[in-house]
């Protein structure tokens, strides 16, 4: 066991918060889409990857990180809208396995296209100059950009919460995830809600991608491992539960980060062990309702 200084441990907890934030953004999108449409979007990781590449392209052409941060998620969200309309829509009414299978095929296609367009070697994204360097937190220095990621994640989550809890569209979305049949019976166009939600989920994946870009670079396979981990986050949190996705994303972020600190070899495995333990103790996940959406 390494010599544990409190400062190093605190820095590691902050790193876990950053990782957790990325998990939360991905898991919320997955969970929203799943909760409402019972569609598991396997291509979510590929959209995350596209977010990072879109960020790279936008930074290169506009020179502005802020523009990239805003436009990249919008572009990925628009692609999400297209995917829902053209590819997922024909599958409604068929087995819930079919959209999963289709988006699995789609993720192969997107990853390969990214390899063709941007090459097999990863690209690096520079954080904006204002966010370079490190900030003194009192007990340790911490990279400014990572603090920025935590802040953006928090703001976006707050915005999403207000949207879902305080607006009429949000109300219909929440109702739709409880009982789509009833929402339809009340005269709402469920198809349009699904369309919007798929776009939001895809946009959040794109946002996670561009946020992660300056920390991890952009490469075609970057979405593969993280999508599996995000599935775990969703299962642990309880499928369809947004609070669950947030808590479990932050939890898994800490678990990974602290294991990296104390036992680096176990870092990749511990995610799945956490999942197995939760499944044994609470099969429906931390915040899931038993039998919901099965």
């Amino acid at each position, binding site marked *: 066991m390494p010599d544990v200084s409190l400062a190093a441990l605190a820095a590691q907890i902050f790193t876990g918060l950053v990782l957790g934030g990325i998990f939360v953004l991905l898991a919320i999108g997955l969970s929203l889409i*799943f909760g409402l449409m*019972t569609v*598991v979007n396997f291509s979510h990781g590929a959209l995350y990857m596209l977010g990072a590449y879109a960020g790279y392209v936008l930074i290169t052409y506009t020179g502005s990180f802020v523009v990239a941060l805003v436009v990249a998620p919008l572009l990925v969200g628009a692609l999400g809208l297209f995917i829902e309309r053209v*590819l997922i829509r*024909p*599958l409604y009414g*068929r087995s*819930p*396995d*079919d959209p*999963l*299978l*289709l988006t*699995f*095929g*789609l*993720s*192969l*296609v997107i*990853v*390969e*296209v990214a*390899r*063709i367009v941007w090459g097999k070697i990863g690209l690096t994204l520079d954080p904006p100059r204002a966010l370079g360097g490190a900030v003194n937190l009192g007990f340790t220095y911490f990279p400014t950009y990572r603090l920025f990621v935590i802040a953006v994640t928090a703001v976006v989550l707050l915005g999403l919460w207000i949207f879902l809890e305080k607006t009429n569209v949000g109300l219909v979305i929440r109702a739709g995830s409880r009982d789509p049949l009833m929402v339809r019976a009340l005269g709402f166009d469920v198809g349009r809600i699904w369309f919007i939600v798929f776009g939001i989920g895809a946009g959040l994946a794109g946002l996670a991608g561009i946020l992660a870009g300056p920390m991890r670079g952009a490469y075609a396979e970057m979405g*593969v*491992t993280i999508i*599996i981990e995000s*599935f*775990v986050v*969703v*299962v642990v949190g309880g*499928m369809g539960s947004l609070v669950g996705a947030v808590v479990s994303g932050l939890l898994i972020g800490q678990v990974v980060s602290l294991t990296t600190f104390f036992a680096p*070899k176990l870092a*990749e*495995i511990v995610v*799945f*062990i956490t*999942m*197995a333990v939760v*499944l*044994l103790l609470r*099969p429906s996940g931390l915040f899931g309702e038993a039998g919901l*959406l*099965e």
Partner: protein
Amino acid sequence: MRRLVAWVGRHPVLGFVVVFALFPWVVPYKSLATQVLIYGLFALGFNLLYGFTGLLSFGSAAYWGLGAYGTGIALAKLKVTSLWVALAAGLGAALLGGAIIGFFCLRRRGIYFAMLTLAFAQLLYFVGFHLADWTGGDDGLRGIAVPAIGVAGHRLSLDRSVVFYYFTLVVVVLAVAGLKRILDSPFGAVLQAIRENTDRAQACGYDIARIKHLSFVFYAFFCGLAGALDALRLTVVPIESLHWSTSGQVVIMTLLGGAGTFFGPFVGAGAYLVLEDLISARTESWPLAIGLIFMAFVLFLPKGIWGTLTGGFHGR
């Protein structure tokens, strides 16, 4: 063509033997024929779970890999001299893995199940990656010497590709006959009842949890057998055996051929491998091609090649 398909449909195991006894002489090279048999067996196992029980697993690589590493480690590290003992080691590993992971995954239904199987397979991938002393880690497990087998008092070496093909054929025919026996049994009928309507099957008094678990263990068994045979074919176990892309591959093969049909998995494995052979020779972007083909099948041809030829989900 149509009459041939119908005949094969009526005498599945016999038809299988006839077709695959001639098969190596119609494909460009023998090793491709062996690959079709082994991946067909892999898809057969997946199909038992997905096509007949209605459970979509995205973690088949776990059992394929356990079979491959079990057999490979027995031969390369433990210096086992009997091929049968080595195969048994691989099958034992796959069965045990299937029993344990199946228990966890079957705690949830539907789409959760797919995600859980994927997650557990990823867990095994990382374990295999880090246990390099036993698995060879990133380099793969090397140094697998395939022992000769005793046939009617003679020692038969499996080194030649034709000999290995017919050895594989015998093993796979036994597995196909075994699967036919399973599907024709009352147990097989209950599996299909679960696929059609789980709640109703439960209401009929069947112990759904136990039957699904048993189906999962059978699935792990067939996948493990296929993985073990592949370890013998390659004399190497690459770490990709446990990778999620291997799980994806068997999903694609089964759906191309036709899920829930008896021969679909072999037709799908054949179509996949021949296409891969043809397309990879011309372009590096094979995943793009197979991704598009697969999407087209999900959207427009969900019954797959064999399912469409024989008239659907139930025409096996």
